[in-house]
């Protein structure tokens, strides 16, 4: 089968997953549990995806750990998205000059 058929099927399935809740849930959810659940979803998902993935993404795990620490401290002190992202990249680059 052509790669194009696979790509179109994959794209259609992924779009359905993304578009159905956004279009079908048109009014505010009343249930306090569901409201709270959806409030917590972003924090949980992002946290779960960050660690330990950040440690596994780098050439040397310690570089990932250092990036995590630097990122948490910088964000705690109020640095924005771009500065924190750049600080993490620089941390990995510099530490791997020594580690790898």
């Amino acid at each position, binding site marked *: 089968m052509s790669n194009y058929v696979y790509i179109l099927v994959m794209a259609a399935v*992924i779009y359905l997953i993304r578009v159905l809740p956004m279009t079908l849930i048109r009014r505010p959810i009343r249930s306090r549990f569901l409201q709270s659940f959806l409030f917590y979803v972003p924090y949980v998902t992002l946290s779960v995806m960050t660690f330990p993935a950040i440690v596994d993404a780098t050439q040397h795990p310690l570089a990932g750990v250092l990036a995590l620490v630097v990122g948490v401290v910088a964000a705690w002190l109020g640095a924005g998205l771009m500065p924190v992202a750049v600080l993490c990249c620089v941390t990995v680059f510099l530490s791997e000059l020594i580690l790898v």
Partner: protein
Amino acid sequence: MSETRSSIPALLRQGARNGIPIGLGYFAVAFALGCSKSAVDAGLTPFQGFLASLLCSASAGEYAGLGVMAAKSALVEMVVISLIANARYLLMSAAMSQRMDPEGNFIHRLVMSFFITDELFAVTIARPGYLSPWYMYGAILVASPCWSLGTALGCAAGDVMPPRLGSALSVALFGMFLAIVIPPARRERVIAGIVAVCFAASFAMSRLPVVSQISEGTRTIILTVIIASAAAALFPRPQGSGEGGEAA
């Protein structure tokens, strides 16, 4: 609602600015995707890589899909694997539906949905008040081309990216996630506790036997459902404030 009435160009600009770190991370990850073994085995041309990334904007989801392509499996398998590997977008889409302006144009829901990724979801929902379609479009306009072009170049180039550079760029996305999660964790002890639990549980699941065999996307869904449910049961939000301002 602390919604400041910003003009459309200003919102686009703000979004585009926050799209830059996303784009950098995307480029590195997409490049890796394009020269991955699955992409090579599937015989993915640069144009096909570009198309797949433009239409899907899904890192782990696309990687899983490329595996199906490489194995020349049945289309049913592509459907099932795509459902599993991308199911977390269902939760993100549901969360976003609660923050849409009810008076807003329906078209925005259709367009925004198309670009729900971990990162674009994160920056869009991190702003207080109703979600701003234009802010999200600004981020999309910068980040999405990086994703598609990165994949195409990866397909074309094989492994020319210096590992040092790839390694450094690969943490950009995680740095961004931290910048979104940590400030509210500083303000609210409950959120700080949840973040700590997430880190520990996610680490455990990635290292323990059996559960570590589950794909990363599926582990994310399982942990999200369990931890967010427990948090909602133990620490329900005050009625009416859940969809609003403080998720910044």
